[in-house]
C-alpha cells in the first residue's frame, strides 16, 4: 500500500529532480572533504553550510506549496512551524552542552542560570534524548497546525482572512518566544551549541553530514509531497482549491482534508527547521517574524506555485540571489525582493517551473499537429 503510494509520486519531473538533488547531496560534500583546498573543484566549508541552509529553505517552500499550491491555503505563517521545529532541535543541542557552558551547570542551560532558575522547567524534560527531541520536531509543529487548522477550517475561515490569522499566529509566537519567562532563552534564543549526537557541530565532517541530510530531506519531502498530490487525496485537495463548496456537496469533509494537509505540511516545515538550526548555529525569536513567512511565499511564487519542484527551485534561486545581493547592496535587498515578486506576478505568473512546463507542453502538442496534413475542408 505504502509502496504503491510512493511510486505514484515518481512522475518524470520528480524523477529528474530527485536525481539532481541526490547528485548534489553526494558531490558537494565530496568536493569539500575529498578535493584538496587548492583545487578549483574544492567547495569551502562555509559554502557547504550555506547550501545546507538553502536546502532547509527548499523544504519549507515545499511544505508551503503543498498547502498553497494544491489546496489554496495561503499560509503567511509557515515560518512558525519551521521555527518550532528549530526550537525543538535547539533544546536538544542546549542539553548536549552539559557542563561546558559559561556557568558550568550540569543541567541548566546558561540563560536559566543567568535568570536564577533553580531547576529545569518540565517542558525541557526529555530533550537530552535525541529520539525524543526528533519526535518533538514533528509533533509540536504538527499539533499546533492541527489545533489551529481544526478551528480555522471548521469555522470555514478562508482566503485573506485565513492568511491574516496565520500571520497573527506567527506574530503571537514571536512575542511569546521573546519573553524570558517562557524559558526559551528570550531575545537571544538558543545558541553556543557544542555537539550533535556526539559530533562537534563545527567540524567539517559534521557540516558535510548535515548538508547531506538536508538534501535527503529535500528529496524525501519532494517524494512524499508528490505522492500526496498524485493520490486521490491530492485530487480532492485540488478540487477544494478550485471549487470548495462543490467538493462539500459531493460528500468530502473539506475541513478534515485541509487540517490533514496543513498538519503534514507543518511537520515537514518542522523537520526543515530542525536541520537549519545546527547549520546556522542559533535559533532565536526572529525566526517567527512575519516577514520570514512572506519571503517563503515569494520563493514558491518565483519557482512556480503548485509544481513542487518549483518550490525547491524558487527557494534556492531567491536565496542565492539574496546572498549575492546582500553582499553587494545590503540595504536594498527588501526592495529587490519586492520588485522580484511584482515582476514574477506580472510577467511569469506560473513561476519558473510552471512557465517551463507550459512551454514544453505547447511545443509537444504543436509539433505533431504541424506535421500532420491539414484536414480536408
Amino acid at each position, binding site marked *: 500500500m*505504502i509502496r504503491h503510494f510512493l511510486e505514484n509520486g515518481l512522475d518524470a519531473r520528480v524523477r529528474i529532480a530527485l536525481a539532481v538533488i541526490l547528485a548534489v547531496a553526494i558531490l558537494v560534500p565530496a568536493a569539500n572533504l575529498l578535493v584538496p583546498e587548492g583545487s578549483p573543484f574544492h567547495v569551502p566549508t562555509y559554502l557547504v553550510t550555506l547550501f545546507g541552509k538553502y536546502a532547509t529553505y527548499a523544504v519549507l517552500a515545499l511544505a508551503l506549496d503543498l498547502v498553497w499550491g494544491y489546496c489554496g491555503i495561503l499560509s503567511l505563517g509557515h515560518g512558525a512551524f519551521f521555527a518550532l521545529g528549530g526550537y525543538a532541535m535547539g533544546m536538544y543541542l542546549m542539553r548536549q552542552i552539559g557542563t561546558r557552558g559559561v556557568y558550568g551547570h550540569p543541567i541548566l542551560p546558561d540563560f536559566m542560570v543567568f535568570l536564577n532558575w533553580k531547576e529545569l522547567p518540565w517542558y525541557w524534560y526529555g530533550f537530552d534524548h535525541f529520539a525524543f527531541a526528533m519526535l518533538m520536531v514533528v509533533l509540536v509543529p504538527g499539533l499546533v497546525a492541527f489545533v489551529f487548522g481544526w478551528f480555522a477550517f471548521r469555522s470555514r475561515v478562508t482566503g485573506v482572512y485565513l492568511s491574516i490569522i496565520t500571520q497573527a499566529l506567527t506574530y503571537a509566537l514571536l512575542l511569546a518566544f521573546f519573553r524570558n519567562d517562557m524559558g526559551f532563552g528570550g531575545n537571544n534564543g538558543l545558541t553556543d551549541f557544542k555537539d550533535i549526537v556526539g559530533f562537534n557541530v563545527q567540524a567539517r565532517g559534521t557540516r558535510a553530514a548535515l548538508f547531506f541530510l538536508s538534501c535527503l530531506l529535500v528529496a524525501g519531502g519532494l517524494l512524499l509531497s508528490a505522492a*500526496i498530490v498524485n*493520490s486521490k487525496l491530492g485530487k*480532492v485537495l485540488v478540487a477544494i482549491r478550485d*471549487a470548495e463548496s462543490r467538493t462539500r*456537496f*459531493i*460528500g468530502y*469533509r473539506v475541513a478534515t*482534508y485541509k487540517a490533514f494537509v496543513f498538519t503534514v505540511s507543518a511537520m515537514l516545515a518542522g523537520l526543515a527547521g530542525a536541520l537549519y538550526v545546527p547549520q546556522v548555529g542559533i535559533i532565536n525569536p526572529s525566526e517567527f517574524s512575519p516577514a520570514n513567512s512572506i519571503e517563503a511565499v515569494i520563493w514558491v511564487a518565483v519557482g512556480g506555485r503548485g509544481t513542487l519542484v518549483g518550490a525547491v527551485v524558487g527557494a534556492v534561486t531567491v536565496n542565492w540571489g539574496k546572498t549575492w545581493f546582500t553582499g553587494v547592496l545590503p540595504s536594498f535587498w527588501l526592495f529587490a525582493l519586492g520588485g522580484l515578486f511584482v515582476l514574477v506576478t506580472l510577467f511569469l505568473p506560473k513561476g519558473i517551473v510552471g512557465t517551463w512546463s507550459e512551454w514544453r507542453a505547447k511545443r509537444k502538442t504543436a509539433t505533431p499537429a504541424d506535421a500532420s496534413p491539414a484536414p480536408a475542408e
Partner: protein
Amino acid sequence: MTEALAANSLLYLDDVKVSFDGFKALKGLSLTIEPGEMRAIIGPNGAGKTTMMDCITGKTRPDEGEVSFEGGTIDLTKLDEATIAELGIGRKFQKPTVFESHTVEDNLYLALKSDRGPLATLFHRLSGAEAARIDELLATIKLTGRRGDLAKNLSHGQKQWLEIGMLLAQEPKLLLVDEPVAGMTDAETMETAALLREINASGKSVVVVEHDMAFVRELGVKVTVLHEGGVLSEGSIDHVANDPRVIEVYLGR
C-alpha cells in the same frame, strides 16, 4: 396528519421559512416528494427555488419548519453538506460547477461513491469496477471522446452534462437539479430531458428546477409553481399553465 404525509415521503418540507437580513426568501414552503418520483419546479426569478435546494442540502439553515428525508426519519436541518451528500442527496448547481483543472475523467472519479475519509482517499487505487463505472458514465453523458480533457475546456452544455454525470456517480437516492438546460441548444435540451427521464426510470427520485417550459413539458411530470417563497400551484403542466394565478404571475406583470 403531517406525520402520515412525512412517513410515505422521500423528501418532506413543511412550513419552511428562511429570511436573509429581514428579506423573506421562503415564507412557509411545504413540499412532499415520494420515493421514485420526478418533480419539476418552476417559478419566476427570486421565487426561492435555489434557496429551497440550499435548505435541503445543508447550505442554508431554515429559520423555521421541517426538512426531512426518508419518511421523516432524518432531520436534514441538523446535518452538514457532506453528511447530507453521503445520505444520498446529490445536487447540480444553477451555475455549472465542475473541477476545472481536473480532467473529465477525474471529475467523475472524485464523485464516485466511495469512502470519503482522508486516509481512504490517500491510499485509494482505482479498481476495475470503478474504471468500468467511469466508462459507463462517460458514455451516458456523451463525453467519452473528451475523457482526458480538462473540464475547463468543455462547452457550457458539456459542463452541465458532466455535472449530471458527477451526480450519477455518487449514486444518490435523490437528485436536485437546478436549471440543467440553461445555455443549451434545443436539441441538447431535449436530450437532457430524455436523460433525466432515464435516470428517474432507474429508480432515483429527481427534483428539477427549470424556467424552460418546453423542457418541463417534455419531462411530463407533476409541476410545482413557486412564487415569492411559497407554493402557488401544483399539478400537471396543463393544470398549472391554465391556473389564473400562475398566468398572472408569469404574464400579468
